């Protein structure tokens, strides 16, 4: 996917092959060195990049890119060249060259824009630019080597586990770092850098290898991911600002994974999903100790959670049973309408029209914090010397919830029910003729999704401290669906990535908020064009989107056989 720079004809490349490697290596080294030099005269911008030997923001980015470049170059030729038999260093270097140039140009533009002119750029910046250009040009002339297939790779199992753990630690650092950046220029620069580096590693085949080892050590991966998520609040030093964003991301992600059961597994398009989150939230609000709560019965929160979830599931059944008999498009319209009906009902159930349940447009404010088993969620707590604020408390509960939702997702996906869903997606008539109860299965998917959203909603009500109709507008449903489509239908990891991107970007790019929708629209159009199955797609979904791609089918087949062989060997 090199949109920026056209590729070089093979003949030219072969002619100059020997010059490519030194150029690329030199470029990478320059990038690394530039990080140690001063980039700007102005210490007040971009987190102070004026000091030599004290790398910050863009200096760090250049150094990271430089290190990746050096490693890739040495894989091609030099001490790491054995690794070069497995990873495609040439493709990696080419992608890295493009990414580096983008990052450095963006950084230099940021400096000159903020400080007033190119004059403010110190030699470090120019060295980095030179390095990026050398890497770009050099990378283009590095010839590709013939590779071994990862199917035959046999690495040390301990090493593989270490790689997973290190990677997860990097993710943790990256997340903590990016959340700590208040400067939008740095934030965007980091995104370009991270995206570019990921692209380069993907081109080099790193992620293919990663998916192989994570198949082999699935439990390690899951555990490490949860450990990272668990440790995250401890990196925030008691500050609630980022934790508030993090809890919002978690609620959004939990809801999106629930929606992925409906959309990604059962194959039903639901445009009113936010209503199920809302019904859970309203149930919790009405049964809370808030002054304006409308139901006198105050059961323990665990009971409230179950009631909220069951109410949502019941709504799901009511709306699903007449509509699931018709095909996809009608369902989308009916669910869209249902979402609006829910919002308008909450808006109007204020005692003037019908019973007073929701206080109408005012909603139910002042919902007190949760208090479970004597643990007050409203107060900061001290654990092992770290102060964990109010949002951290909710964060941990939401983490548990998301763990449960992921469990439901994966287990249903791998069960008899999951097979039934796949069969329905593939050929509904044939599935029926084989005795699959298509209607019941679709209804089940719909209800399970609603149930999980209801669960998330009950926690959301307490965390938000209020529940009002304007929280549950159609746009929210659309965002949820975008997270699923962007991240990847039918996978958990994909939706987590999609939800994080969609929730984090608007928070960090507040100056851009007017163009937010435009940006999302563009993003979705580009995704549909380039990668309709989403960022991290399930293999089956990928095949469904590329029905004619025989090469992809045999590739996935190969992967599958390797996995099965590994499973059998264990």
């Amino acid at each position, binding site marked *: 996917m090199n949109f920026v720079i056209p590729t070089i004809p093979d003949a030219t490349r072969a002619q100059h092959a020997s010059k490519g490697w030194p150029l690329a290596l030199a470029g990478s080294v320059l990038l690394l060195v530039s990080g140690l030099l001063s980039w700007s005269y102005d210490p007040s911008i971009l987190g102070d990049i004026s000091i030599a030997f004290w790398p910050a923001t863009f200096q760090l980015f250049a150094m990271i890119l430089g290190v990746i470049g050096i490693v890739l170059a040495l894989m091609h030729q030099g001490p790491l060249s054995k690794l070069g038999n497995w990873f495609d260093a040439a493709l990696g270097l080419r992608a890295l060259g493009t990414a580096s140039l983008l990052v450095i140009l963006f950084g230099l533009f940021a400096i000159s824009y903020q400080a007033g002119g190119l004059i403010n750029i110190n030699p470090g910046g120019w060295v980095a630019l030179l390095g990026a250009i050398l890497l770009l040009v050099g990378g283009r002339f590095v010839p590709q080597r013939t590779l071994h297939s990862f199917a035959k790779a046999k690495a040390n199992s301990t090493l593989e586990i270490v790689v997973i753990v290190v990677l997860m630690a990097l993710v943790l650092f990256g997340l903590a770092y990016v959340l700590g950046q208040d400067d939008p220029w740095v934030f965007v620069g980091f995104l370009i850098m991270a995206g570019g580096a990921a692209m380069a590693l993907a081109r080099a085949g790193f992620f293919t290898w990663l998916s192989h080892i994570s198949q082999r050590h699935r439990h390690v991966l899951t555990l490490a991911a949860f450990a990272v998520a668990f440790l995250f609040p401890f990196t925030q030093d008691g500050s609630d600002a980022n934790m508030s964003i993090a809890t919002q991301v978690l609620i959004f992600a939990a809801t999106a994974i629930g929606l992925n059961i409906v959309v990604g597994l059962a194959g039903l398009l639901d445009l009113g999903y936010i209503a199920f989150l809302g019904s859970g939230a309203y149930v919790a609000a009405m049964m809370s100790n808030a002054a304006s709560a409308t139901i006198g019965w105050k059961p323990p929160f665990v009971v409230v959670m179950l009631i909220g979830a069951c109410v949502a599931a019941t709504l799901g059944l009511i709306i699903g049973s007449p509509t699931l008999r018709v095909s996809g498009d009608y369902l989308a319209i009916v669910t869209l309408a249902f979402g609006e009906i829910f919002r308008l009902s909450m808006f109007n159930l204020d005692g003037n029209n019908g019973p007073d349940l929701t206080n109408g447009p005012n909603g139910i404010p002042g919902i007190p914090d949760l208090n479970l088993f004597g643990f007050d969620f409203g107060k900061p707590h001290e654990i092992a010397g770290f102060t964990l604020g109010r949002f951290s408390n909710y964060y941990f509960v939401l983490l548990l919830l998301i763990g449960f939702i992921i469990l439901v997702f994966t*287990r249903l996906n791998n069960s*008899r029910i999951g097979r*039934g869903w796949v069969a329905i997606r*593939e050929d509904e008539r044939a599935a029926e*003729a084989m005795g699959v109860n298509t209607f019941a299965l679709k209804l089940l998917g719909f209800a399970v999704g609603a149930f999980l959203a209801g669960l998330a909603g009950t926690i959301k009500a307490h965390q938000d401290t209020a529940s009002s109709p304007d929280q549950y507008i159609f746009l929210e449903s659309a965002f949820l669906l975008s997270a699923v489509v962007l991240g990847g239908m039918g996978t958990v990891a994909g939706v987590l990535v999609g939800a994080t991107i969609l929730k984090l970007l608007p928070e960090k790019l507040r100056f851009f908020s007017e163009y937010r929708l435009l940006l999302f629209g563009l993003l979705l159009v580009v995704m549909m064009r380039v990668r309709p199955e989403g960022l991290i797609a399930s293999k089956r979904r990928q095949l*469904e989107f590329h029905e004619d791609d025989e090469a992809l*089918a045999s590739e996935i087949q190969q992967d599958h056989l390797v996995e099965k062989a590994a499973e059998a060997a264990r």
Partner: protein
Amino acid sequence: MTVIETDVQDGRPRPQRGAKVLDAEKVVMRFGGLVAVNNVDFDVHEGEIVGLIGPNGAGKTTFFNCLTGMYKPTSGTVRFYGEVLPPKPRAVVKAGMARTFQNIRLFGNMTALENVMVGRYCRTTSGAITSVLHGPKYRREEAESRARAAELLDFVGLGKSAELLARNMPYGDQRRLEIARALATDPKLILLDEPTAGMNPQETQQAMDLIFKIRDMGLAVVVIEHDMRFIFQLCDRVLCLVRGEALIWGTPGEVQSDPRVIEAYIGGSELEDDEDDA
């Protein structure tokens, strides 16, 4: 009707004919003004292979769909072990009637094993909760389904292809996989819609051996086919449909020697262009 039976067929002993499995009486299927199936009687017994032949557009597949609950006949009754089944494919499968499709309808992006396991769906009952909790019932049923599916793949000769994606399999194997999937529903009667379409002579012979093997398990088999030699070697009785009506219903010998059958195939083909094989 007299059925002349020999004891040996294609070099194997012919099993005893068992109870009546399927009994169709005066089945009529109308689509608007078009009478696709008109007053057809039909029956199949356990351990019997029955053929259904006829020129294109004779209504074979429509009749098939009436038998398997895809269509509700306009009039007439279809009894399965003496009971009239509701016109729902699922209920029909559950009762013990399974089918394959004329144009292969496998779940292409699933592996062969998974395809057959989908066939086990109607014989298992574990629901969402036990699936999420991995309860004892779920584990037992899952292990059983897997074992039975593997066994059936071996039975049709695809034991080595269990982990191949259905869409990546050769054509002949896909046909056999469809049969394995149908067998996974534990049928008493299996209906095969053109099981040898597009096959070479060698594959056709293999398909015939497979169908005999299925019959030998005591199942009743109904086969739609165009390949006359295949049908006459395979079947105990043959029904020839022409323009929705039963032309003749008898042993292969009787059907083969009937001049009207030959005429229907060679002479009376004016319907062929008007109506596709519905």
